[in-house]
């Protein structure tokens, strides 16, 4: 392992109403992957942004190769050789791969026009160095898969010839296979002596790529340890600040009759093909399947987002025509969608207004509303769900992912639907918030609600579900009860493979 290239000493950053970082020390060596973990709001992103010069720290200093660093803005940081690859892509969808990589610093011909040939050959060389020559550099970025776009982001970062790369949740949009190839690239970068800061929630990734881990909690550094010097359990305990003996909470429940049933449900896009499921009150039913297996489309069909081609939906034994979300909500169906920023929240609106958006008419049936009452309800939600915020007036875009998801949950809790569909309820949120969501789901089931949970995380599906349906290419290929399945069985069914004898 190389010498230390980046050191941050005693970094403190205060935002109105909260101390985001409190005297945090951090150091990065050449050729190492230093993982930064912590719950949402622990200060990971803030620390990364201080290093990148996006935020100016209130106290403390950052040293780069022994020299005190005075940067303001990413431009300065890039000039020093510090670049970031963000969780949300910064590429422009309609420009080509090459144009994106050299955006705003295009090569020029002698006459001052853009030198497309040179840009393309340079881009090609960069992608080749990442073993991604299969990516068409002339294609507009929007035609690429998410993983390919991620690779283009990395190529762009590399084009600056960086000494330090900060990855912010790079795998949150990738499939397992895509993530593996990303890890291979990270290993290559390590060999080149580049220092890597890796911000992530996904603990299973750490041993594959990490050298050291720094745990942050509530803006304070808890520890910096070697990757092999602690167990997962210890790591979670450090992140959450309390002992967490069990992640998945399930109190056994009695099932009290059918709440939702679909018969031969199909959609027009061909992504859902003749799906029949049953969901009982007091039950958590998991739907396992790969991304693109039709899970989300099934949820959208039941919720009335997309029109039904054939088949029927019954709620409490009575047929219901899911023609719109308005109708679904009327029948007591709620949907926690997979993309909270797009479908779950109005990010520019206050927490309070988001929290009552479904139950507006229920709370104020007489047309006129009372803002005080809205704020009071939201305050209760904030307390109950432990949403970290300075006030209920805060716009949701300023909340961390886990807290945003809690606002989405508050939205549905206030409405109190009898059937709730959770689509990827814990995507991109930290362990602490995840456990709270599991607890909440368990409580809802205990109250007699019927819960349908769609998830890509197999441990989550297995840990929480009373029953599991497995979907593959739009069809239900398997159904099994709690205790009847192993992860291997379900995993192979998800891939469309048979399980011995079946």
């Amino acid at each position, binding site marked *: 392992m190389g010498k230390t290239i980046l050191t941050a000493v005693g970094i403190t950053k205060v935002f*109105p109403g909260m101390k985001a970082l409190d005297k945090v020390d951090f150091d990065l060596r050449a050729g190492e992957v230093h993982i930064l973990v912590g719950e949402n709001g622990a200060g990971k992103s803030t620390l990364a942004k201080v290093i990148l010069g996006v935020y100016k720290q209130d106290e403390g200093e950052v040293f780069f190769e022994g020299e005190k660093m005075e940067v303001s803005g990413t431009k300065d940081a890039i000039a020093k050789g510090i670049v970031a690859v963000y969780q949300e892509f910064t590429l422009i969808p309609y420009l080509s791969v090459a144009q994106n990589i050299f955006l705003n610093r295009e090569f020029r011909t002698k006459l001052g026009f853009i030198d497309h040939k040179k840009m393309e050959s340079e881009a090609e060389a960069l992608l080749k160095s990442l073993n991604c020559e299969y990516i068409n550099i002339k294609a507009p970025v929007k035609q690429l898969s998410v993983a390919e776009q991620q690779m283009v982001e990395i190529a762009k970062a590399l084009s600056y010839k960086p000494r330090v790369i900060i990855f912010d949740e790079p795998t949150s949009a990738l499939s397992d296979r895509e993530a593996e190839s990303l890890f291979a690239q990270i290993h290559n970068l390590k060999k080149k002596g580049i220092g890597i800061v890796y911000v992530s929630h996904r603990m299973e990734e750490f041993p594959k790529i990490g050298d050291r881990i720094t745990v942050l909690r509530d803006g304070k550094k808890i520890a910096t340890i070697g990757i092999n010097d602690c167990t997962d359990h210890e790591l979670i305990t450090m992140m959450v600040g309390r002992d967490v003996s069990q992640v998945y909470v399930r109190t056994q429940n009695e099932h009290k009759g059918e709440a939702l049933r679909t018969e031969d449900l199909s959609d027009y896009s061909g992504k859902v093909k003749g799906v029949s499921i049953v969901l009982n009150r007091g039950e958590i039913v998991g739907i396992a399947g790969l991304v693109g297996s039709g899970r989300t489309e099934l949820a959208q069909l039941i*919720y009335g*987002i997309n029109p039904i081609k054939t088949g029927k939906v019954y709620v409490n034994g009575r047929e219901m025509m899911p023609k*719109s*979300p*308005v109708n*679904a*909500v*009327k029948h007591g169906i709620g*949907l926690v*969608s997979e993309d909270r920023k*797009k*479908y*779950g*929240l*109005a*990010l*520019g*609106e206050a927490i309070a*207004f988001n929290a009552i*958006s*479904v139950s*507006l*008419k229920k709370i*104020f049936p007489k*047309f*006129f*509303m009372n803002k005080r009452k809205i704020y009071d309800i939201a305050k209760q939600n904030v307390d109950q769900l432990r949403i970290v915020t300075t006030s209920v*007036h*805060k*716009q949701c875009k*300023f909340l961390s992912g886990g807290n945003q998801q809690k606002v989405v949950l508050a*939205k549905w809790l206030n409405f109190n639907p009898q059937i709730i569909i959770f689509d990827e309820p814990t995507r991109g949120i930290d362990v602490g918030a995840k456990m709270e969501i599991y607890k909440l789901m368990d409580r809802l089931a205990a109250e007699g609600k019927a819960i349908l949970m769609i998830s890509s995380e197999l441990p989550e599906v297995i840990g929480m579900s009373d029953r599991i349906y497995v979907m593959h290419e739009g069809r239900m290929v398997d159904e099994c009860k709690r205790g009847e399945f192993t992860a291997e069985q379900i995993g192979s069914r998800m891939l469309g493979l048979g399980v011995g004898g079946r």
Partner: protein
Amino acid sequence: MMKFMDELKRSKSFFSLIGLIGLVIVASIIAPNFRTINNMITILRQASVLLILSSGLTAVLLTGGMDLSVGATAGLVGCICAQLIKSGVPIPVAFIIGILIGALIGFVNGLLVGLLPSFIATYATNWVLTGLAVMVMNGAVIYDLPKNFTKLGVGYVGPIPVLVIIAAIIVVILYILLQKTTYGRQVYSYGSNAEAARYSGMPVKKIMISTFMICSICAGIAGMIITARLNAADAAMGEAYGLQTVAAVVIGGTSMLGGEGGVGGTVIGALILTIIVNVMNLKGVPSFAQPMVVGIVIIVMVLFDINSKRKQSQKQ
């Protein structure tokens, strides 16, 4: 009081209000006759039509939409109303028919906006409605409407012009509708994130169409009042108001992207535009120079508004 100030600061119109206050202070200094009660009433009277139009348009902009047809709607409804009255239809009946036509125009706009971008859809209906107005008038102009009708435009109740009262009533109704009712909340939700509103089980299509209907009804009422004030109807009489209405709403701090702003800010925006012209008239600025000043003031006001908002959001 603190609560009120908090609420005010949160509202996106806070900085427009500072702009208005600044403008009033400057006006009072450079034009001593600005501060008279008579002049204040004049300003309100001059602002009335714009207030009605822009309050209605606020509903559309809050959803993230745009309505470029308010001027033509005002013109067409004013012309139809004048023709009806001339042909002997009782004034209240003509007025109600005018409102219904406004509602119909808004409904059609709303349906079209479901299919194509609102800029284009309403720009096109603006042409269609202007053409219809010319047809209704047979290319001519109508004069001499009955006194009972023109009272709406030129009459007084005590010292206060009737049209100021009408504008005030409409502003208050829209303010309550958008700020104090569940419907208003839905409009804001839709404007902030239409998809999230849909996923929250809101009747999104109805919400969107209804805002266009509100806008066109206001435009219709404004058109009839313009007719009453002029004591004449002309197919082109709404033309000048179209973009001015948009300017009033935007100066008032309502975002063109939807979800931010409100009628309170729009009142400020309409007053700012009116006061600028009023002060220039008081100071004897020649009319050919006035448009230039209006343009510059709009740029300055909106720049100030944008910068202040940016600073405020950085604080969060």
